């Protein structure tokens, strides 16, 4: 029935605290474009600059102590986690995730994203300052 579908649409994902879908999509696009650049830089810097393509332990530590490298890697971590987790969310939506389950899963994904970034930043810190 047309009425039923209209209710479906008006009820769908209109939570107050949720970012507008336009901005969610923009964030995905922006992180995506940033990743094109950051990942290229990362791949070139990690594997094309060094002899043999893989750094030894000492080379890694020396490399990560460079403040520019540290910042770029941290930025890469944040972008790739955001883009990746948002992407997983999109795939789940495609597969029919909805209602309360959707909210629970979205919150879990958010927590996973935060945990990932925190872990990655901690790892960077340990290598750069305590390596």
């Amino acid at each position, binding site marked *: 029935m047309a009425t039923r579908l209209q209710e479906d649409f008006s009820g769908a994902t209109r939570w107050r605290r949720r970012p507008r879908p336009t901005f969610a999509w923009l964030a995905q*696009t922006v992180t995506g474009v940033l990743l094109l650049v950051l990942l290229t830089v990362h791949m070139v810097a990690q594997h094309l600059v060094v002899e043999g393509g893989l750094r030894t332990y000492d080379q890694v530590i020396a490399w990560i102590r460079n403040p520019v490298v540290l910042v770029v890697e941290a930025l890469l971590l944040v972008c790739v986690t955001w883009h990746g987790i948002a992407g997983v969310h999109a795939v789940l939506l495609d597969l029919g995730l909805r209602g309360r389950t959707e909210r629970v899963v979205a919150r879990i994904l958010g927590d996973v994203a935060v945990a990932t970034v925190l872990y990655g930043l901690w790892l960077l810190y340990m290598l750069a300052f305590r390596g």
Partner: protein
Amino acid sequence: MTRTGPERGTGGRQASRWLDPRGRHLGTWAFLANRLTGLGLVAYLYLHLVILSTLLRGPEAWDGLVRLFRNPVFLAFDVLLVLGLAFHGFNGLRVALVGSGLLVDRHKALLAAAGILVGLVSLVAAVRIFFG
């Protein structure tokens, strides 16, 4: 040959529709490949973090891993990784452009261009990885 009934899609039924190749055009393949490479890359992200955590165990553990990664099996995996990354990136760029309403009439050309770039980057990467 069984096919699932084409009822209102949820979960598994939608996924099985994705697996039905009949009558589909290039754009759908690109969409599916984007999903596939995306999920693969997310899995790789966590694998990568686990591997990098080896650095916390000191030089011997890490350098041992580095020796392992020079094995041709791992090198081949690296080439696949670059292929997946290149596809997701360049096709993603097409989706971003077209999805913002830019160059919509050229979406087929953009897909072709993406394909060429993916091929080139993967080829260069394969050469560098195996012979560099």
